[in-house]
């Protein structure tokens, strides 16, 4: 049993718009991350992945719920305490073009996290920068170049190097591969896996690409309209998917080797607006198996097996996910 590194309990985040209406981005999200483990998050646009990421990174504060790091409550950290906490949780971003300040050279970008926490003489600083570059497989002479003179893939690796400068325990990847071509994607993923193995990094991997997420994640969390619908192991997701939404998502992944005789069944309807989340199960408006109870009450998270939870009334008989997990 490994200690839970980062835990979120009932994280909720709302935004108030100009005309007074409330947009609920995240609703009572529970989440656990462990060392050396990758948690993948999938879902459509607007499902709340990015907001969740910002909450975990403490770039924003949750309106409700608690966030704990290594058992310590970090929900209300502010000021210098929050700044000092930063070394534990790092992030790499979706758009490699925007992730780096155009007027800063590579070495300065990499040295910035180091300078924020350690007082090193410049020679040592330079040495650490070279080490970081080496870590992600970038040549040392890149240090004197500007980020925009590098390719997208190289920049993402640079972002990774920056994130790793402080030896964080948790790495949040916000669609880090979305803007990359396939080969660069591959490179980056391999790097992540290698680093996880070596350093015991806990990785949160948000992604659109189901296939990629499957190959990378130990566990996968499926989100919809700010709520978690299902949590299941990454391997064999295709076979074990329980929630109708997860099944539909999987059904939308086409591959060369798929069964062409089966008809394509797209989901009916549009995603409701997060300003106006339906009562009951958020998915009920589009669910082919919608029942009367689905319209009235939100399904609680139920345990199908020790490593598989689902929030759906179809699994009425299953045990409700207990508060404290004893895995």
């Amino acid at each position, binding site marked *: 049993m490994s200690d839970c590194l980062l835990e979120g309990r009932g994280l909720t985040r709302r935004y108030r718009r100009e005309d007074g209406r409330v947009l609920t981005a995240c609703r009572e999200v529970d989440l656990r991350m462990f060392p050396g483990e990758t948690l993948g998050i999938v879902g459509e646009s607007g499902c709340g992945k990015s907001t969740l990421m910002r909450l975990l*990174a403490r770039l924003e504060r949750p309106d409700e719920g608690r966030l704990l790091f290594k058992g310590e409550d970090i929900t209300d950290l502010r000021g210098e305490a929050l*700044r000092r906490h930063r070394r534990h949780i790092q992030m790499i971003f*979706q758009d490699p073009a*925007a992730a780096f*300040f155009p*007027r800063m050279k590579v070495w300065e970008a990499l040295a*910035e*996290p180091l300078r924020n926490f350690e007082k090193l003489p410049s020679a040592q600083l330079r040495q650490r920068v070279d080490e970081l570059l080496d870590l992600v497989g970038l040549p040392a002479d890149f240090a004197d170049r500007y980020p925009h003179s590098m390719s997208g893939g190289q920049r993402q690796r640079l*972002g990774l190097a920056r994130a790793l400068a402080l030896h964080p325990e948790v790495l949040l990847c916000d669609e880090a591969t979305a803007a990359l071509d396939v080969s660069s994607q591959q490179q980056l993923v391999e790097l992540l896996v290698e680093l996880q193995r070596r350093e015991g990094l806990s990785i949160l991997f948000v992604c659109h690409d189901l296939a990629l997420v499957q190959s990378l994640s130990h566990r996968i969390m499926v989100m919809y309209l700010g709520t978690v619908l299902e949590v299941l192991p990454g391997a064999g997701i295709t076979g074990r998917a329980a929630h109708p939404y997860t099944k539909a998502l999987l059904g939308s992944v086409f591959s060369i080797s798929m069964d062409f005789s089966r008809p394509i069944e797209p989901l009916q309807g549009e995603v409701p607006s997060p300003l106006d989340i339906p009562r009951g199960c958020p998915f009920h408006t589009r669910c082919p198996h919608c029942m009367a109870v689905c319209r009235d009450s939100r399904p609680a998270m139920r345990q199908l097996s020790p490593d598989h939870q689902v929030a759906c009334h179809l699994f009425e008989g299953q045990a409700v996910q207990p508060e404290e997990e004893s895995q």
Partner: protein
Amino acid sequence: MKGSRIRFFLFLGLALCIVAVGVFAPAIATHDPQEAVLANATQAPSAQHWFGTDKMGRDLFSRVIYGTRTSILSTLILVVSILLVGGALGIVAGYCGGIVDTLIMRLADMMVSFPGMALAIALAGIMGGGLFSAILAILAVSWTKYARLARSLILKIRSQDYILAARMSGTRNRHILWRYMVPSALPTLVVTAATDVGGMMLELAGFSFLGLGARSTSIEWGYMLNEGRAYMESAPWLMIYPGLAIFITVVVFNLLGDSLRDLLDPREESAGQTPKKKRRNKDMKRMKQCAAAILAVGLLAGLLTGCGQESGETEGVHLNFGCYSYSDSLDPVVTVNSSWAAMRYGITECLFRFDDQVVAQPNLCDTYEVSDDYRTWTLHIRDGLQFSNGNPVTPSAVQAAFERLYAETDADRGGTGNSNPEIYLPEPELTADDGAGTLTVVCQGPTSNLPGILAYPYFAVIDVSVVEEAIVGTGPYQVDSMQPGIGVELSRNEHYWNGSVPYDTVSVIFIEDSSTKSMALQSGDVDLVENITTASDLQKLSEDPDYYVSTAAGVRTGNSYMNFNGPLGNKALREAILMALDSETMCDVTVAGMYTAGFSVLPSSLAYNYDQLTNPYPYDVEAAKATLDEAGIVDTDGDGIRELDGENINLVYLAYTSRNLNDFAEAISLQLQEIGIGVTLTVSDYDTITALQNAGEFDLVTANTTTVGTGDPQDFLGCWYSGNSQSYGFYSNPAYDACYEALEIATDAGERLELITRMQQILIDDAATIVHGYYNSRMFSRVDAVTGAEIATIDYYWLTTDIAPAQ
């Protein structure tokens, strides 16, 4: 990319050239920019003076070159500080958000709506004026543009990933601001600043035009431009060259800013090149036609509507009189200006009237008696007098007018008028006897000069019974309508008692600007104009036989009080000063004839025996120097300034910009420096200067005073009486005091005249004050339209019945 880089360096080079001109000014200039040779004033460009000379005889080329320093430096300081202040506040507001943002933006809203002019004057007052306060004022209202710009730039990048990454890396806010926000905002701000240099330079120049910016002691293009305005036609180079300097600088800096922007944003180059030529020509033609059509329609409409209006000419004999408006009201109780206005336009009259020697003569009152104690005056009102509305002018009517005057100007009685009749005559007791036609005036104390006092415009006789609707007097013209700010329409007073009134109707047209007055006269839009003060217009109209110029050395004396509590207590010094000054040239050339030279404190035009006075200190520079040498006031340390009691002489000279006083002060300073007397000149506004004057903090201070407001110079002469003189230089002479005290109680005219003559000579012999001259009043008329346009000595009367149509 290459092209834009070349352009940038080209314009940067040009800009640096301009700055270099300023830096190396001493090497480039041909003369000392402050060296004034009064005799050489306003000369055209020549081999000796490449740009000609200005009104003080200073070389214009050198002044323009030296002006580069002040103009460029002040503009750059202004622009840089606006950038720094606005940029910093904008960046902080954008980054911090929340309450800080709200506060800063509210402040910006406040300052942008604040009228810069008001701020400039207030700051000038608090800080003593000059370029610095103008810079501060412009800064205070202009920083907001940069703040908003910076803020919007910051808002754009605040949510960028790299900022989030920086925060994730644990970077402190301070560092984010400094390393990310500032470099992001700075280029745009700098480009904006470069393009704003020109505009800022013009703002500073504009402030000079309104008298708020550079003082005459600094060499600045805007100020030179403003000075040259008066010589637009006679010495156009005075405007052309400084204007050219401004133009070139503005263009260069604007192009610099543009090229900088192009350099930082190279994508602009490829934008407009693709469209086909043919279609573009058609578009071009279309747009030109559109623009031309709009303008043409506009102009046509304007001219048509205008033409229609203009043909509404009045029947009969009409006069167009252009004059400066001092007041929107004609009611004597409102302000002193309104009382003067009503009299000047020929609407109101008093019981007495000043003749051209400024002696009060009977007017509405034809005979009078006075008691021996000079307290009780019995004034007989002329028989058969009527107001212009036909109501009879009875002693009761006169009493009512006077009582209203005092009541309406007394706050305790609920009066709202700002006139102050009590300073001339404390409220007397009035009794009217309509049967005998007399009004009895019992004064609070002996008042020997009641006729003079009652000739003052405050005491105009108006019809109180209709005063709510109109101001009705006894003058030759009556008011038909008044449009504040525009003019007054007058028509003949059919009941006028004193001869025929030449015009059926008169339009008094208010004109604010002297050049405009001159142009209006020349174009025929007005036939008669008073007091043109711009030098070139004055010269032109005087020399042109189509125009008649009547000049009177009026009742105002321009002088500089001397502070006897300082170095000027030394008589030899004072004598030398008077002898060093070329008053004739100053009056004729420096102030372009606005003054008549003289050496007594009372104007030569008055009846106080000016021709019997002698001047022991006529203009003689050598004699001045000799006097100083003999008195041992010499320059021992070779710095060009003489010493008195071991210290360099440095006279503090205060002047305000009114009626050319600052021109005199400047010219005098320069002449005194020629004989080795140091002068520090401060030019500011009336209030600041008089405040300093009352505090006694001066050696010399200018003044322009109406010497005989009520026909008697006693008040003015009182400035040198030891009891009063603390505000006028602490002059004290027992002989003078004795004369003054005698004058206070003397009632016999002959006795008074003798005392006054003696007092004038005492002051002259004591070299007690510098007399600049007597301010001229003038009336200008078109010979083909008007005759008899003479100006009276005392400027209460403009539109008289002597002014008639030409035959």
